[in-house]
């Protein structure tokens, strides 16, 4: 006769209790994490600024009207890059406006006066507002310097790649006092009162270049 394991009533009850305790603890962990994530998702303000430098800001922290301009700039950037690939040079804002590329072309009149400035491999598209109390915007595009190794950063809001493989660094800047901005190339925007605007916090492994 083969030996059989006989479990006492006490042992079975102890196992049941332990199983319940483990399941309860697992439920506690999952519910706690779920509650925290739900709370974070519903948070419209918060403290994400702690991951940004003083001159950086997330787009969601802007007023709605400025968020619209930011989104229009990011969308229009794709058309600008397409023109750059086609023409092998960065197009003039007037050409973009003729093609109806927002925000360079505005249906409701000249909300911004766009100008293009370039120094070396850096191009600035500067938009000065018609209403001087409104913010000014700037799209800064940096091409790689000649003979520099390819940038290993993954493609994101900041890093774009042209069809010919050229990796671009893209930055969107905003100046709160648009009427006080002088037209011209801006070499160090963060030192001249400009605020860098992101959709999401920048990747800490590949921080924005100066």
């Amino acid at each position, binding site marked *: 006769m083969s030996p059989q394991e006989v479990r006492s009533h006490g042992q079975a009850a102890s196992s049941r209790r332990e199983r319940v305790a483990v399941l309860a603890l697992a439920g506690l962990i999952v519910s706690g994490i779920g509650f925290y994530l739900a709370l974070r998702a519903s948070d419209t*303000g*918060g403290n994400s600024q702690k991951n940004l430098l003083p001159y950086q800001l997330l787009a969601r*922290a802007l007023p709605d009207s400025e968020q619209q301009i930011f989104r229009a700039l990011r969308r229009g950037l794709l058309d600008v890059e397409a023109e750059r690939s086609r023409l092998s040079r960065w197009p003039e804002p007037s050409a973009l406006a003729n093609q109806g590329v927002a925000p360079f072309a505005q249906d409701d009149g000249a909300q911004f006066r766009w100008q293009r400035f370039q120094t070396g491999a850096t191009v600035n598209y500067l938009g000065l507002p018609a209403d001087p109390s*409104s*913010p000014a915007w700037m799209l800064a595009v940096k091409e790689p310097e000649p003979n520099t190794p390819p940038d290993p950063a993954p493609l994101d809001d900041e890093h774009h790649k042209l069809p010919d493989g050229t990796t671009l660094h893209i930055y969107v800047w905003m100046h709160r006092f648009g009427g*006080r901005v002088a037209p011209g190339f801006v070499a160090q925007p963060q030192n001249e009162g400009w605020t860098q605007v992101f959709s999401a916090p920048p990747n800490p492994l590949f921080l924005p270049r100066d």
Partner: protein
Amino acid sequence: MNLRRLLTAVLLLSAGIARTSAHNVRPEPVVEVFVKPTGDHVTVQLRLPIAVLADANLPRNPDGRLAQNDIAQALNLVARGIARDLEFQQGDDLLAMSAVSASLSADEELALIDLDYLIGPDRSPLSARLRPFRAGGQVVRTDAHYIVDARAPRTFRIAGEPERVTFEPAPTQVLGRFIRRGIEVLLSASDYFLFALCLIAPLRSRRAFLGACTALLAGQAIGIVSVSVGRLPVTPAVLLTIQASAVSAVVVAAIQDLVNPHSRWLWPLALTFGLANGLSIGERFLSEASFAGSYVALGLLAWLIAIELGQVWVIALLASAAGLLRRRGLIAQLAVLALALFAGHTSLHRLVDRSELLAELGAITLDRFLMILTLAWACLILCTGILEAILPARGDGLTRPSLTDAQNAENV
């Protein structure tokens, strides 16, 4: 008490303690906003240090002083830009600005901006989008004072991301905000986590463990409520002293874990730590209390529940994890016990850091403060030793768990 174990514990905790570098505390500029509803108008006055308007490129004379003749137009433009940014609302409706004016203070240190808005007859709450400013690459916080009556304006402090502040929030808004803030405090203020490590490091009886946890949470609740209702004025020096005392309690708990983990003085120590930690956390609530509007008690309750429940959750997790690890054998048990060393060592570093900050305030020198703190704890420990000699021995009939209990349980 085994003296050799005590000395060993102190040496292990103190290994590698080095002084951190000091930093100077400079007075910081602040942007002040005064909001006062009066009948069918709401007036908003902003006082901005000129430094935060450096980006506005205000016209200056060749000697560097502001050009008084040309500055009016620039200031007016700045005022309209800031007003546009404020997005003053009543309910969901953007308020139209009826008047705006801007000027400089006599000493040219401040720009004064006055805004006037017409408000509707309904009682929808007023709100504005407040944000910090920038000066010289540093963030300048904004203090918005909502003047309800002449006695006590509510002050809203904005130093991080811009946010819409409702000056008279609804209860649901208050609940949501303070639960979120409570969880943020839970995640950022980690002293309790170090104390929790000390609680779970040695194998204790369930009664002792639960008693200590209860004392910790009770002391914390008392501390939070005491400060939050304004009964205990907490200056920066007092706050640093309290925070230093809290981490010193963690150091004592770590030593206790290694020397005498079954001490009857565990729950008083937990109560002491909880009280000190609660006072520190309560001060943070005080700085945010204005955001609760008329529902301060509700906000405090939400804050308290979020923090206490969160800590219970953390302690339960840690205790379960420690229990699971101890079943692996003697090495694992010792590894769990070593968490007390980590907690004590980290707390020593924090104690030194906070003592240095306190010394920089000029209230007391670093050495003197550490001496007083050490002597205070020494006196307390001496008193407990005397009481131990006087009080009857613990004959509670409970079998004290030993390090090999878990192993024996496995072998059954």
